[in-house]
């Protein structure tokens, strides 16, 4: 596999980075990087870490990082997690208020501890902490429950002072969305599977409305809704499918869409195959809507979506 860290890759311009990923020869990994300056979204770092964990550390070839910002990758814990040497010297800073370094989560209890420790680290207002905790919990639990990934969920996050935003990236190298969603719902392509996974009430664990005792099929819809209401980017990449919720202008009414393809978005069904799932989310803290208002909108959209699906399944008697 080959992955190149470009000069810039945030959710708005991450597509070329994804397209440049070469998944061939999965037994080894070659990491190269722009040698001038690197500024990337945490999703990029989580992806590289997740890939690296699938490969014997001896088979990771990492180009010497020359970029001025190379220390960032040490701070985020990339080399440490992958157990590969680095000659980049840094002064360790207290991470409070700035970033959450790469973290690998493999169990439910690890996730609960992580969330408890993470929130105070970022010094957020209660409403913002609620939103962030919600996103991390739902996304990581998705990985733990569905992905069957040997390495669990890999995540990291960064606070950006200039935009007053938090950016989060979560990656896994598990089954991918298509394999899990098609256990209960037909989807021809990875992108079709992503579309289904983002709809409220659709889960791979059952074809029935209302889900199972443990799964409702609502987690990703909630996360996409949080991003949509806050007018932030949200991406999901699995197999060859890639969906990006684009930023939109402010609206008076919180209107959510049950079908992600009716949101303002871009999509690609032919990306290099990512064996697993990657999710990236931005949360602009200045415009974080009150969580309870968001829940009102979710309730309305969810109910309408379920009622419409019921109507579609409703069979009328045939009179001849």
């Amino acid at each position, binding site marked *: 596999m080959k992955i190149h860290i470009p000069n810039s890759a945030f959710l708005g311009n991450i597509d070329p980075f994804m397209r440049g990923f070469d998944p061939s020869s999965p037994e080894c990994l070659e990491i190269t990087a722009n040698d001038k300056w690197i500024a990337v979204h945490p999703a990029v770092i989580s992806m590289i870490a997740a890939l690296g964990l699938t490969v014997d550390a001896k088979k990771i070839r990492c180009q010497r990082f020359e970029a001025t910002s190379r220390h960032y990758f040490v701070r985020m814990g990339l080399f440490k997690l992958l157990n590969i040497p680095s000659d980049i010297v840094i002064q360790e800073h207290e991470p409070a208020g700035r970033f959450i370094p790469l973290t690998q989560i493999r169990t439910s*209890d690890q996730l609960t501890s992580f969330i408890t420790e993470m929130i105070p680290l970022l010094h957020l207002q209660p409403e913002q902490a*609620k939103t962030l905790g919600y996103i991390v919990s739902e996304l990581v639990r998705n990985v733990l429950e569905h992905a069957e990934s040997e390495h669990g969920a890999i995540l990291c996050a960064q606070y950006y002072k200039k935009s007053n935003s938090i950016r989060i990236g979560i990656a896994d190298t598990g089954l991918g969305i298509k394999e899990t969603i098609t256990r209960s719902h037909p989807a021809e392509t990875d992108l079709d599977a992503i579309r289904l996974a983002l709809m409220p*009430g659709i889960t791979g664990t059952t074809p029935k409305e209302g889900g199972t*005792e*443990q799964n409702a099929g*609502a987690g990703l819809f*909630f996360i996409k809704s949080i991003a949509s209401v806050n007018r932030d980017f949200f991406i999901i990449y699995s197999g060859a499918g890639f969906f990006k919720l684009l930023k939109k202008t402010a609206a008076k009414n919180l209107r959510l869409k049950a079908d992600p393809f009716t949101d303002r978005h871009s999509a690609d069904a032919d990306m290099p195959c990512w064996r697993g799932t990657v999710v990236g989310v931005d949360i602009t803290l200045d415009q974080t809507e009150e969580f309870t208002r968001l829940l009102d909108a979710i309730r309305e959209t*969810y109910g309408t979506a379920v009622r419409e699906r019921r109507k579609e399944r409703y069979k009328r008697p045939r009179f001849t």
Partner: protein
Amino acid sequence: MITIKIFPRTGAFAENKDVARELRVKEILPALGAGQDVILDFAQVDAATQSFIHALISDLIRKQGIGVLDRLEFRSCNDTVRKIITIVVDYMQEGT
């Protein structure tokens, strides 16, 4: 009537579905089975995920019918928790 306090099991953010399942299977279901009504006390819980609430109550509604809500009381819920519970109860009724 028994009261189950959520906070000592989850902390201020109720998100661990395994804890929700354990509460449902080991405490709520046996109490309902014994003819007792159940109070779920969310005092000090700031937020809960939809997944947590789903794991806590959806199977009760699915298996015992919506009438089970007459025997469940959700106490001391703040706005967020109240709305999440309402979303789960709504879609469990819409979908059946």
